[in-house]
């Protein structure tokens, strides 16, 4: 019986032009218009493609250092064929060679970091260039110090200088994480060598890509207009679903179809549950279509699938609960007043406070805080947090607000549903 009721409600919704236009066509059109029109304003300084620019200034080279390295090794009592073998090994495990030709040249890291080589004399000019995210400066005695430290246990750390840009933290942090991993590898070469592990292997085996991706997740992405308005319209237009479902319910009462349902043994609880489930399903479908539209048409890269799923489901449950409540109010008052007030007034206020039209926080932090307690505002903030790359934990306070709204709607539906004869 429940499935029949849900199926019937879905057919009524899908075969009516007005709901389809308002629930699907309008948000998609508005998303396209607003994303395009306001892209210039909102996307300033935004960066969606994450590729950091690294410049390497290498003052060292083998030719210059080879003699001093040889002398140092001979001083340590190594000579003849043993010296040649060690030099071959040292060359093979050269950290700079590994960094340039293995780590940074790899396909995975190359996605995130582009590398250029410049002269050390350009350092001052390069540091002023805002398009450069990081500069790695390798001093002239780097290899000698490395060999002393890694092969002979001399307590002399091979220094490098890393200059990171303050302009884009995410890109700078990507460079930092790769350099740190590399540095970690070569400073512990001696320990690894004694354990029979080649320093080369260690430096290349760093989890650079994982680190970068972790870095991206931990750091905030800028939200472009396309994401902002897709989410803004998504949360706003879902609020129209209860209006249509409660409108159909009122028609059922006015046409006396509801009397037939009562006579057939459909209880008020079952009826309300069917409205709740239909509202939830329609909300999930609507949000899925809008999110897919954003991905395919606007090229949005939605991240944080788990968090998004939790939020979309949570909001859909709320929409289902609100559908039940609005139905209850309409049946109780036997008029479209409740739905009209809701769609004409409450949705606009909620959309304004929730930030569907613009970031209300730019106007007033008080209003923004109030907006975060509206169901659509809480949902929007939660989705945007996930899209900024924040951790899943940050959404729980917003999900809690949604849950409170959901419980409130369900309880009021139960308490206010008209008793026998209240709809005839």
């Amino acid at each position, binding site marked *: *019986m429940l499935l*029949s*009721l849900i*199926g*019937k409600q879905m*057919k*009524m919704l899908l*075969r*009516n032009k007005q709901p389809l236009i308002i629930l699907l066509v309008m948000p998609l059109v508005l998303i396209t218009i607003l994303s395009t029109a306001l892209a210039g304003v909102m996307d300033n300084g935004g960066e969606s493609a994450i590729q950091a620019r690294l410049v390497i200034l290498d003052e060292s080279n083998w030719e210059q250092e080879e003699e001093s390295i040889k002398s140092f090794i001979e001083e340590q009592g190594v000579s003849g064929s043993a010296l040649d073998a060690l030099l071959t090994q040292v060359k093979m495990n050269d950290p700079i060679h590994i960094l340039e030709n293995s780590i940074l040249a790899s396909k995975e890291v190359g996605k995130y970091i582009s590398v250029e080589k410049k002269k050390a004399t350009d350092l001052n000019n390069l540091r002023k260039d805002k398009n450069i995210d990081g500069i790695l400066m390798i001093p002239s005695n780097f290899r000698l110090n490395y060999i002393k430290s890694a092969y002979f246990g001399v307590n002399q750390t091979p220094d490098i200088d890393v200059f990171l840009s303050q302009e884009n933290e995410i890109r700078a942090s990507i460079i930092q994480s790769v350099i740190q991993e590399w540095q970690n590898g070569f400073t512990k070469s001696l320990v690894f060598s004694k354990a029979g592990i080649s320093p080369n292997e260690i430096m290349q085996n760093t989890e650079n890509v994982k680190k970068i991706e972790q870095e991206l997740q931990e750091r905030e992405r800028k939200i472009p207009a396309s994401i902002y308005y897709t989410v803004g319209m998504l949360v706003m237009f879902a609020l129209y679903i209860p209006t249509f479902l409660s409108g159909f319910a009122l028609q059922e009462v*006015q*046409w*006396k*179809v509801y*009397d*037939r*349902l*009562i*006579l*057939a*043994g*459909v209880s008020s609880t079952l009826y309300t549950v069917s409205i709740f489930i239909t509202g939830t399903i329609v909300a999930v479908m609507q949000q899925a279509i809008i999110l897919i539209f954003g991905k395919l048409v606007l090229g949005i890269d939605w991240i944080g699938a788990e968090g998004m799923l939790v939020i979309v489901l949570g909001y859909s449950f709320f929409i289902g609960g609100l559908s039940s409540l609005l139905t209850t109010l309409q049946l109780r008052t036997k008029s479209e007043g409740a739905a009209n007030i809701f769609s004409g007034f409450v949705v606009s206020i909620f959309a304004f406070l929730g930030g569907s039209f613009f970031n209300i926080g730019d106007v007033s932090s008080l209003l923004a805080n109030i907006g975060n307690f509206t169901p659509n505002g809480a949902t929007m903030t939660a989705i945007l947090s996930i899209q900024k790359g924040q951790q899943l934990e940050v959404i729980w306070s917003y999900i809690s607000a949604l849950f409170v709204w959901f419980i409130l709607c369900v309880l009021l539906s139960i308490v206010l549903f008209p008793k*026998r*004869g209240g709809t*005839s």
Partner: protein
Amino acid sequence: MLQAINLQKKFKTKEVVCNINMQLEKGESVGLLGPNGAGKSTTISMLSSLVMPTSGEVFWNKVSINKNPEALRKTLGIVPQEIALYPELTAKENLAFFGRIYGLKGRLLIERTEEILLKIGLSDRKNDIVKTFSGGMKRRLNIGAALLHKPSILIMDEPTVGIDPQSRAYILDTVKQLVEEGMTLLYTSHYMEEVELLCDKIYIMDQGEIIAYGTKEELKLLVSDNQTIELKAHLLSSAFEEALQKQFPMASVRKEEDILLISMPKKEEPLATIFAIAADNAVTITSAIVKIPSLEDVFLHLTGRALRD
């Protein structure tokens, strides 16, 4: 057996139904006759357990449906005055939906749906969306939806309102067939001829009260002392009407379009006198019919108003 005892319904302070007593035996077809606003629909809502009476009781097979409405609901088919259908669904989808909520499924549901579509003459339009149907077709489907679960009692509230004569005749034939098959029927209408055609027993209702009840014959006996003469004539004049009223002071003389209706006690033999008065007033009578009393006359006699006023 459906029985109503002292049913009363008040909406706030307004009493719309007062002290109704009714009884429907199994297989009986009962008419509830009354003008618009008489309280017929409210009475039906109380009888079908949809509205709780302010006072009084309704019993179905001696079980109080005030306390136990489920006792009646599953065995009841109701045809409301409104088109209680989903306009966005097809005829078949509507019937299948109502069948399913009554617990029909699978092959039984398919068979029953096809059977009903055949009965109401909509088999060839079963896959069409209801909102594309004519008023008569919607009314037929409205009846079909009430028959799917094979109810043992059918309550029909003005099922022929606002439709063309052809559809009306079809519906009346269908209902007559149901009655002949033994369906217990409560039929409300303000069309006398429908109630006369379909019902064995009739309750006449006005201003929330039952003002008379009985079989057609019993009700007509209430006006058996009266006769109505229907005159058609050329050059009908107010002088002629006044002369008739003067001659028959006990009569009520009224004009409906080009027909003059004279109601008077049966004991008088008026035709010769009427023709004489017509001749005196230069009126040429083209036809004069002495009418057998109808339910319309009964209602007029009881309330002083025509049923459709």
